[in-house]
């Protein structure tokens, strides 16, 4: 039964891939319009209009999430998966999308209103909402019974050891591989690409000379945050230790800062300070950059638009530093069930069902969404290897990255509200940029960060959340 469902999802995916993205979007919106008018009519009549002929659905489940960067995922999720699940569970499922930048505002508004969706999705651990959500331990437990252990990175992103509460349920996360151009790197004599940070620094000036600099952002945006935090860890610099004490003022951080400043001077240009989250994608797709850290949206976009160099784009794990190879997730997809949600039982059941059979989501997101329970996607490695795009097998490395080098924000501690505040105030990119632009020495920047971040931790500790 279970296998049946996953294979049918898989074949859906294959047939859908043949139709263009445009076609898919068209289908999606037609469906949405029809659906919407039905919904509007229902509201004005103040009565429930059955969505399915001859059948009155018992409950409603409202879900809010981002617009997935793979439009096909939204089509599958909105029109196929949730429809089928709704019929099987006698529930009308309403999926609504929010621009990723607008998620925090809407979440805060729902909490203030004490009314909103039954399931609300964030792209990073929403620890600051802990008091507003139920304990999601039931969901985790129920899935564990069928699918074993949750991935450590997800556990550490959604569990608060101080309050012993799962403040969210992570359904998915995206690994954060390095994208690099095989042709450029070969041209300058490094055919193996960015294997270590040392190699990156050596290759950088040559790559910049041929007009293809390295692209690791130091700007107020998510990619910079992730890449720089990960780089710090490779040099032994951590924001917090495993007991959630702020330890950023360390030799490791200073080394990373020194390294990043010299990498900037040797092989990057001023553009990295100006970036938005889209910029490294675009610069890579324009053929400018020789290397960037990002979830697989870059390589997928290159394939979708049939760029000639799509076959030269390679994926690798984060380069190894003096303290090893330590990477981060790129997106941690977290659903929460508000305490004031109207339909908690179905919300829980939805999450459990979604996660237990995650193959459809994994395939339809084009491998963007990794399962938070590794066993929820059967034959994950084989599926990665089966991708048709040139060069074949390039996605296989994702599994290695996923298993060995993907950690949570706040590693080696747990993700928490203070980490999230550091993240949202862009204090790490700020620290790196100030050193790279010679506004501060590494030592000054690290101690300034220790001071500012220390205050943030003290604040959340006083609230008894860390």
């Amino acid at each position, binding site marked *: 039964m279970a296998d049946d469902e996953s294979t049918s999802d898989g074949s859906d995916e294959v047939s859908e891939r043949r139709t263009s993205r445009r076609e898919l979007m068209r289908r999606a919106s037609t469906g949405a319009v029809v659906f919407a008018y039905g919904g509007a009519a229902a509201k004005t009549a103040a009565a429930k209009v059955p969505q399915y002929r001859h059948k009155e659905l018992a409950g409603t489940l409202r879900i809010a999430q981002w617009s997935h960067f793979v439009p096909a995922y939204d089509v599958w999720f909105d029109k196929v998966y949730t429809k089928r699940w709704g019929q099987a569970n006698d529930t009308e499922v309403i999926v609504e999308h929010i621009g990723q930048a607008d998620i925090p505002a809407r979440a805060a508004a729902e909490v203030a209103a004490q009314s909103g969706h039954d399931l609300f999705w964030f792209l990073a651990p929403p620890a600051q909402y802990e008091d507003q959500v139920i304990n999601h331990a039931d969901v985790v437990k129920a899935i564990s019974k069928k699918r074993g252990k949750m991935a450590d990175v997800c556990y550490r992103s959604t569990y608060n050891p101080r309050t012993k509460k799962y403040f969210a349920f992570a359904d998915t996360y995206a690994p954060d591989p390095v994208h690099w151009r095989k042709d450029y790197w070969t041209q300058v004599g490094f055919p193996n690409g960015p294997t270590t940070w040392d190699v990156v620094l050596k290759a950088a000036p040559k790559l910049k000379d041929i007009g293809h600099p390295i692209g690791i952002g130091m700007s107020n945006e998510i990619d910079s945050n992730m890449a720089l935090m990960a780089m710090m860890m490779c040099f032994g610099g951590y924001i917090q230790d495993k007991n959630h004490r702020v330890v950023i003022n360390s030799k490791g951080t200073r080394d990373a800062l020194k390294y990043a400043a010299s990498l900037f001077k040797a092989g990057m240009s001023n553009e990295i300070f100006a970036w938005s989250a889209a910029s490294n994608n675009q610069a890579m797709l324009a053929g400018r950059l020789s290397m960037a850290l990002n979830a697989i949206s870059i390589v997928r976009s290159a394939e979708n638009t049939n760029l000639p160099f799509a076959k030269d784009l390679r994926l690798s794990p984060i380069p190894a530093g003096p303290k090893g190879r330590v990477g981060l997730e790129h997106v941690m997809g977290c659903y929460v069930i508000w305490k004031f949600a109207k339909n908690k039982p179905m919300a829980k059941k939805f999450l459990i069902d979604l996660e237990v059979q995650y193959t459809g989501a994994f395939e339809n997101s084009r491998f963007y969404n990794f399962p938070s329970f590794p066993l929820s996607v059967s034959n994950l490695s084989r599926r990665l290897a089966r991708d048709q795009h040139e060069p074949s097998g390039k996605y296989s490395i994702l599994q290695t990255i996923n298993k060995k080098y993907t950690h949570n924000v706040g590693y080696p501690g747990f993700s928490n509200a203070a980490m999230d505040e550091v993240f949202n105030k862009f204090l790490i990119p700020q620290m790196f940029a100030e050193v790279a632009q010679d506004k501060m020495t590494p030592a000054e920047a690290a101690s300034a960060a220790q001071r500012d971040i220390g*205050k943030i931790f003290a604040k959340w500790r006083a609230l008894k959340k860390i």
Partner: protein
Amino acid sequence: MLIAPAVLFIALLVGGPLVLAVYLSLTNATAGALHGDWVGLHNYTAEWSDPNFQTAFKNTLIFTVLANAVIVVGAAFLSHFLVREFRGKWFVRFLVLLPWAAPVALSTIGWLWIFDSLFSVLNWMLIHAHLVDKFNPPQWLGQPRLSMAAIITVHAWRLLPFATVIMIAGLASIPDEVNDAARIDGAVGLRKLWYVTLPLQLPIALIAVLFGIVFTATDMAVVYILTRGGPFNSTQTLPMWAFQTGISSGSLGPGAAVALYLLPVLAVVTVLMLWAAKRVEVS
């Protein structure tokens, strides 16, 4: 009383929430919760000592003052010519009005593309005019001074049409007799501008400035779309920092404090300017 509905409505929709916001700023409320433990003025003092808050406070003042200086000078200049009759006036006015007609959240995205780090058309033109280095073009959103200039430009750009319209109105309201009298007295050209037109235009210019100030100082969209406060939080503004603190990071109490720092400053400025506008008018 005919005024009752207006007062009631405003009291309910603005007054009530404002009182609540003040209350929140005195508590340690988190993430959307509309209550918390009382902490007195702690949020205000804690923010005051935060270096990024200080930058934000300073920038809000700088952006507001500079953008409005550009707006006032530009609008005063433009309005003088737009009250005249000339061929194509209708089309010129249409072009001038465009920025006002576009929703700010969308038109700023247009600017984001113009200032893009790689595909900036501005840089393309500068490079081809041999004014900047092809390999290291200016990063309009990546260098503190340039980013500040970029933000001020967009603010001035989007508010200039409105200010111009108000100023045109001011000019149009100068009675013909005044113009005639000035001509008889031999006041023409710059002399007339300085002694007759500008003084008469002043009260209305103050109104334009007032709107400009309110719209730049409380706006978040422009900074949010262009830099999100970057590079290295050097273009933070109070509304932006309030949002990042209170909404994105969930420290609602401190965020409310940040947002409210501006209120008394603006209130004083407004009352002074309205008072000045009246004075100038009377004299």
